[in-house]
């Protein structure tokens, strides 16, 4: 396994590839022929989820969370973000997802709604991507089971599906709001 990796991992090839990519990147023209939605992609429950980048404020590592008693289950704890007490929310139960252990790659994605900032716990932050609408499949809202009400659709690319969340709906969910109240 490792020996195979060793064999495949040719440093020279990697280096030349990197340099080619660098020069390619300089040479590439911006040819936006299609309409792209700029999204922040992250991993939840083993799946890829995304939402529009404009909702995102920043991405940080999972800080030390202080558990707050007598609040909703989804609020994993609170933390201090530059003097602002921010809640870290685990949205996976709301989306009907499994809750695997959060590892080293776990992130807190800080989003800003109208009035306050909220940290969403993610298993990983995969980056900002422009997703093509041509591959978008909207979700027909037929029911509320399984957190479908917070999903707007799927982007199908070569690696699988990326679920586009409706962050407004999620943040304004009564489960969260009630807890805040």
């Amino acid at each position: 396994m490792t020996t195979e990796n060793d064999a495949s991992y040719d440093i020279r090839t990697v280096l030349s590839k990197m340099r080619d990519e660098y020069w390619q990147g300089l040479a590439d023209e911006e040819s936006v022929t299609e309409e792209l939605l700029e999204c922040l992609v992250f991993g939840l429950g083993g799946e890829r989820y995304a939402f529009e980048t404009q909702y995102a404020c920043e991405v940080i590592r999972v800080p030390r969370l202080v558990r707050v008693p007598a609040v909703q289950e989804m609020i994993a704890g609170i933390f201090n973000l530059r003097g602002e007490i921010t809640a870290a929310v685990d949205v996976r139960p709301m989306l009907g997802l499994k809750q695997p252990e959060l590892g080293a790659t776990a992130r807190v994605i800080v989003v800003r709604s109208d009035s306050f900032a909220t940290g969403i716990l993610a298993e990983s932050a995969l980056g900002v991507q422009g997703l093509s609408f041509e591959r978008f499949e909207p979700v027909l809202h037929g029911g509320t089971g399984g957190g479908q009400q917070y999903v707007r659709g799927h982007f199908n690319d070569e690696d699988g599906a990326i679920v586009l969340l409706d962050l407004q709906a999620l943040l304004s969910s009564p489960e969260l709001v009630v807890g805040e109240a």
Partner: protein
Amino acid sequence: MSNKLSVKIVSVLIMVLVVIMTAFSIYFVRSRRAAMEEELLAKGKILAQTGARTMERVLGEAVTSGKLTTDQLFDEQYQPIPGTDPVKYHTKFDSFTDGAIQNIEDEFLKDDQVVFAVLVDRNGYIPTHNTKYSAAVTGDHERDRKNSRSKQIFKDETGVTAAHNLQPFLQQVYQRDTGEKMWDLSVPVMVNGKHWGAFRIGFSMIKIDEKAAMLRNQIVGSMALMLIVSSATILFVVGRAVRPLHNLTAAAHRISAGNLEETVPVESNDEIGELAEAFNVMTNVIVRDLKEEIAKSGRLIASVKEAVVQLSSASNEMMAISAQQASGATQQASAVQEVTTTSEEIAITAKMITSNAKSVETVADDTAKNCNAGRDDVANAIEGMGKVRNQVQSIARAMLELGDNSQKIGGIIEIIDEISDQTNLLALNAAIEAAGAGEAGKRFAIVAQEVKRLADRTVEATRQINGLIGEIQRATNNTIMVTEEGTKAVDAASSLVDKVQLSFASIVGTAHETSRTAKEISLSTQQQTSACEQMAETMSEVRDVAQQVAMSANETERAIAEILELAARLRDITEKEA
């Protein structure tokens, strides 16, 4: 007859007498003959000298009277007379001498012992011979040589010597040419002081020989007569003296024939009479003793018979014993032979053992040598082991260091990962910021994307490095384990090699011990060999002795058999006698 004592004495006496008489006769005859010759010589000398003086006077007168000149007298011109054989010669003086001296010469022949008396000149020429020898020439050579001897030159040695003689008297003994043994007596004839010739007288020895023979015959005859008379006398006397011995002999014969009462008459009182008396006494004594002896010998024979019987039985026992002895000795000899053979075999075996022991010794020495070499090699091996151990330990240390260092590298990689993670986060946030900035943030978004890409690359690289570090650490751990095992193995090998060295030492000790033991074995077996050889020698001597004993026993048996035979004969004899 010749055995008789009287005959023996007489013959001895006769022999002695014959020797004495012969010697006396020879001596007497010789001395008589010598005396006669001396007498004859004296007479001849006188005659010769007388003749010579007479001739000197006649010749001197002839010269003085002038009948002959001196030259004629000394003439040497000998004229041969023809028809004469032997040759005769004329001189200038022979006619004178024929007339003047022949009578004188013939005068000497009146003595019957004188054969011739002649005048010769200094060359042996006889001008005038005696009438007896002056016969006329007949032509018969033999007669002329004998009877017609005048006017010849006699060149024989005696004649020449007489003619040349200047001594006053010369005697010569010779055989005349006529064969007679002669005396030639010559005296020189001088005429007027000059040597003219000689006067020769020839004496015949026949007369003297005849006289000597007569004398000898007379002596021999008288001697023989005397011998016969004396022999007869001795024979008679001795015969008389010996007669009583005959009587004595006859009496002894009669006694030996069994007439023990016989006595010898004593006839005289001389030595023979004493002998007769002694003989009588002896006869009495012997007869008495003989009777006693006969009785004794009867008893003795009985004892001898008994002894013979005992001897026979004893001999039989001895024979049995000696037979046993012989068989025992034979068995002993064969047993000794076996022992000898066995000891020889032992000696051979011992020799083989000796040679084997020597081989063992050689092998043990070689082993010791090889073990010493092995010990050196093992010492080298131990040294090499120590080096290997040190190197393995340094390898282990180096590996531990390598493990430490790769852990440190792991730490550094964690730092790099941390940095990459943070960079990634930073890039993400930058992208978010860029998105927030709208159109103005688009270029910034590209930068952020590049930063993220580099951070991803870095993560990928560090992941590879981590894998490699894991590999290295596993390999290092394996190596450390292996080196520990190697160290242990080296320790075990060292202890093994130490044991090997100890084993080699003990092998060397054992080999030395083996070598020493082999030497001792060799020495012992050599001693054994010599002992066995000595034993074999001794055994062969014993065997010889046993064989001799057996032989002796056989001889003893034979001797006993002879004894038995003798005893049987003795028994027969004694039985006969009894």
